[in-house]
């Protein structure tokens, strides 16, 4: 039963854990995909259509519904990537069935990768659902044209990195949490403020000097700007810089995740 033969590429063990993690949320669409769908129907109806017609952006070159669409896609991808990783790990710890994984011959890197990969996929899927909802609202509106994607490949990479970064942060949250309240605290006091001040609902250059500068401490700014560039070809920051920051941040947080899992933080004591 040597494990050495299964190390190259994605091993059977890694694939099994990724599959288990994906099945967990795919089989519960009412808990995982329906809430963001309904939320975003409401967002697009209120911010996109009802308020959007009264809000100008980018000198009215882009309708507000289109401006807000990439931001909402990022919001969905971020919160679902984060929530999936943190919940799945914490729930496994709470009920101790994460022991099934911990007592297996998966390496610490493989274990972390599986949680991050499955959570990233959920973030991307929710992002796609939100994009479809947004496009449906846009197409249905008599005043707007059909949406096109300016840089599809860039968008795919950026959205994946966005979801992956917050899935990696979610792993830290899932390991750190001591009860379910901790997860709520993270969502309310970390993720939500980052999102709201990350340029989802307003263009970054709408801020004054100091707040504009401070915004760059918020990773969400890079994520929203990158995804908006991918969709609409409008950006405040250099899109390659945004992609680089996202990739670097994801790599750093993933490395922290692996180190924490290896140390057994939240898992073995």
């Amino acid at each position, binding site marked *: 039963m*040597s*494990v050495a033969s299964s190390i190259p590429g994605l091993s059977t063990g890694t694939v099994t854990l990724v599959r288990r993690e994906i099945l967990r949320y795919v089989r519960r669409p009412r808990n995982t995909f329906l809430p963001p769908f309904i939320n975003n129907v409401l967002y697009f109806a209120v911010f996109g259509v009802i308020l959007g017609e009264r809000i100008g952006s980018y000198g009215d070159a882009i309708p507000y519904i289109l401006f807000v669409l990439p931001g909402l896609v990022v919001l969905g991808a971020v919160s679902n990537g984060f929530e999936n990783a943190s919940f799945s790990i914490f729930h496994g710890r709470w009920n*101790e069935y994460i022991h099934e994984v911990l007592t297996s*011959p998966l*390496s610490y890197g493989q274990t972390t990768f599986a949680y991050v990969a499955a959570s990233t996929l959920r973030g991307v899927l929710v992002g796609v659902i939100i994009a479809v909802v947004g496009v449906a609202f846009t197409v249905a509106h008599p005043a707007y044209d059909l949406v096109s994607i300016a840089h599809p490949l860039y968008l795919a990479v950026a959205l994946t990195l966005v979801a992956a970064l917050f899935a990696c942060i979610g792993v830290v949250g899932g390991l750190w949490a001591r009860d379910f309240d901790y997860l709520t605290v993270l969502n309310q006091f970390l993720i939500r403020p980052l999102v709201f001040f990350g340029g989802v609902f307003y263009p970054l250059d709408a801020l004054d000097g100091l707040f504009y500068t401070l915004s760059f401490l918020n990773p969400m700014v890079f994520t929203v700007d990158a995804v908006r560039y991918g969709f609409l070809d409008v950006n405040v920051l250099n899109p390659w810089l945004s992609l680089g920051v996202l990739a670097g941040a994801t790599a750093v947080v993933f490395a922290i995740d692996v180190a924490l899992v290896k140390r057994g933080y939240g898992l*073995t004591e």
Partner: protein
Amino acid sequence: MTDTAAIEVSDLVKEYGDLRALDGLDLRVEDGEFFGLLGPNGAGKTTFIEILVGLTRKTSGHAEVFGHDVVDDYRNARDAIGLAPQEFNVDRFFPIREVLEHKAGYHGIPPEEAGERADEALKRVGIYDKRDERFDWLSGGMKRRLLLARALVTDPDLLILDEPTAGVDVQLRRDLWNVVRDLNANGTTVLLTTHYIEEAERLCDRVAVMDEGSVLDVATPEDLMSRGTDTITITLADQPREVPAFDRDAVLDAAVDGDRLTVRVEDGGRAVADVVTALQAAGHQVVDLDVSRTSLEEIFVQMTGDDASTARDGDAGDGGASDEESPAQAEVSQA
């Protein structure tokens, strides 16, 4: 059997703050052996097991499973182990067949074979017809069976059973014993922790007695049992005026209370015939008889001077079952 031990630990230490759960544990379990780990609550049994499987980090010392260091070579060490823990730590999201498939998959077993193994393991422990149920919907006994099935699905070289029969009924206990005996006969090394000395006596080749984080002694169960005393309680048709005379080599002590005679002996199984014969020779008629075997508590009191039925603080992993009826006592009372 090979030269490499199934488990070899030396000077193993685990500290939780000021509490020393393992205090320089030394132990060697041979390949193919059925090895028992006996000890009161808080002795460090579960901590020791958790270090082997990676659920607890050792403070210091050395631990190997089939020659694989549990820290430096943790993947091969964990791959060799199947664990049926004390606590129910099963994935609640999936039907139990899928839970077993996942566990097999984590150990590198391809999906098709994992499915076959899951079916085989469920059949082996007798819950195959529940394969599409989720864990929460199983009865307590079925949950215990599932823990064993999950441990078996990876075809481990070392099967670790942490208090597998605590609180289960006689039928289930016998079923579990049969499955585990069969596995051991086919070469699987078994490490069993139990509060029940009778269980160790029936199953184990050798047992280690643990207390306060270290091994007090390693012996065969027979040797261990011989260190304690058994009690024969006899109800007589008449009320003897005094304690009947017995062969003092076999009987340590005897007392009479009305028509009930209590005789303390080293080995109840051997002494009972002599005691009954002696009573009949003295003209007494025996109407009822009960043999109560040495209890683990008595042996611990003898070995440690402690009251072993008292759980110690700081090792919540060792569940308390010492105040429950022992398997042998239960079976005697049901007979």
